[in-house]
């Protein structure tokens, strides 16, 4: 095996990074493709239907068929649209969704960029994902697309604040912005994971994550029964596929972050055999799948929120809850002997 190491070391740094990025983005795209199949299957079973089962054994080749269909579809650009922005918008949606994965630690050592300000980096990139939606809505020059973009902008700005405050709670308890350090602070078993002392923030983060990715029950920016398909109503072919990819990559991203920040990352749930025999990547992906499953479950269960209800929930419920819990953490940690709960 040593010759692989020699070849690897002789490669220039840019190429090494490129290969590493490929090893993250490639599986991510495949995961997104099969996440869409999982969504259709899970929701189908919850509706007592069968779901896609024609393409391949048990419908397993369905995502590939979908991708091929979208690739060979004609991409129509509306004549009154702003052509450049219309074509840039899907790119702007996909880029942050992929770039954020650079700092995600899949295990103690398996991380592309183990940077100190990892949490901030993720927060900054998720906040940029709104541009794809806004620009798409505006460039389409269609009232439905524009309405969808406006709804999305207001919603994302509202929920990002609650999300940011939930992260403040995590970093108060973990004492670091580095994602790997945050995970190490949760080692030692299920009872050490942050979702217990930070339970309100955990709920706020998860629900804000659903809102931030424009998923049901917060999918007013698509709202197919009200504004056709919202911001991407004019997109077809690869443009539509890019938005689709970005949405599901973001959902997986939020799931990964929930796992890292509240569910112990790659730590096993119990600190004794046989649980510690399994590698960290396994636990990380298992927990990620669990949270990703919640996204699908929500969609099959809840009716869409009304717009004013979304705003009320974001501004009047979540932000006060997170602020109060941050104060609780601070007071408990520094002024009472019960600070052990939050450390």
């Amino acid at each position, binding site marked *: 095996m040593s010759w692989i190491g020699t070849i690897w070391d002789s490669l220039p740094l840019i190429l090494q990074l490129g290969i590493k990025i490929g090893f993250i983005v490639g599986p991510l795209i495949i995961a997104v493709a099969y996440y869409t199949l999982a969504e259709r299957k899970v929701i189908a079973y919850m509706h007592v239907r069968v779901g896609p089962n024609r393409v391949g054994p048990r419908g397993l080749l369905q995502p590939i068929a979908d991708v091929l269909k979208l690739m060979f579809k004609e991409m129509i650009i509306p004549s009154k649209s702003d052509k450049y*922005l219309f074509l840039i918008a899907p790119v702007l949606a996909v880029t942050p969704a992929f770039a954020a994965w650079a700092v995600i630690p899949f295990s103690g050592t398996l991380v592309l960029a183990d*940077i*100190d*300000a990892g949490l*901030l*980096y993720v*927060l*900054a990139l998720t*906040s*940029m994902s*709104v*541009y794809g939606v*806004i*620009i798409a809505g*505006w460039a389409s020059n269609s009232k439905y697309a*524009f309405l969808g*973009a*406006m709804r999305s*902008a*207001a919603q*994302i*700005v509202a929920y*990002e604040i609650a999300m*940011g405050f939930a992260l403040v709670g995590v970093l108060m308890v973990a004492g670091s*912005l580095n994602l790997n350090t945050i995970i190490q602070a949760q080692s030692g078993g299920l009872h050490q994971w942050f979702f217990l002392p930070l339970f309100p923030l955990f709920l706020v983060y998860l629900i804000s994550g659903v809102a931030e990715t424009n998923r049901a029950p917060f999918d007013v920016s698509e709202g197919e029964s009200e504004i056709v398909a919202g911001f991407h109503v004019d997109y077809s072919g690869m443009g539509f596929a890019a938005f689709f990819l970005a949405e599901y990559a973001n959902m997986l991203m939020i799931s990964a972050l929930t796992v890292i920040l509240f569910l112990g990352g790659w730590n096993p749930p119990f600190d004794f055999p046989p649980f510690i025999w399994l590698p960290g990547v396994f636990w990380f992906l298992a927990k990620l799948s669990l949270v990703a499953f919640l996204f699908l479950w929500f969609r099959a269960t809840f009716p869409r929120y009304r717009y*004013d209800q979304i705003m*009320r929930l974001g501004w009047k419920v979540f932000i006060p809850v997170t602020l109060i819990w941050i104060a609780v953490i601070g007071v408990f940690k520094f002024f009472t002997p019960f600070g052990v709960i939050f450390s």
Partner: protein
Amino acid sequence: MPLLSILFYLFATVLVVSAAMVVTIRNPVKAALFLVLSFFSAACIWMTLEAEFLSIALVLVYVGAVMVLFLFVVMMLDVDIERMREGFARNMPVGALVAGIMVVEFVVVMMSDRFDSQSLPRPVGHGPDYSNTKELGLVLYTDYVFAFEVAGLILLVAIIAAIVLTMRRRPDTRYQSPSEQVKVSKSERLRIVSMPTEKRPEINK
């Protein structure tokens, strides 16, 4: 040329070009988008200066929140370009004067000894263990804690003022109060009426 210099010139070019586009492009939405791009390039330059906290805060606050609201407003406006260009000739001298004064000021400041390459120490590169976030926090909450608190207070006043200025309650607006909806009991909404059983009509005839 080292990688860092290449990156600097790349981001600096993008920054200057997009900043120029902000003021020259006609479409206000595109101007706002170019402003986003120039913020982002500035953040990238800060990142190469090892100021990762400030850099990410710039992206988070300005790109992620402020400019989204900006775009929100600009997209709603129906800007008439022709009317905006009407006063160009009249306002031109004043604008040129202000611009000229600013250029002179910049030149005076930048030519002074203070910004001389001799008197400015060369920035020291730190190792990979250096955390700009931590350093900033240490200074901010110890040496400058008073200024920090004052800034926080000013922002709080601004928030309250903005809310007070924009909060107008129209008497005819109907609000939904979820707490009252939850408090509703069965006796308020449901009335059980007792009435005699209806006789089944004869249909066999």
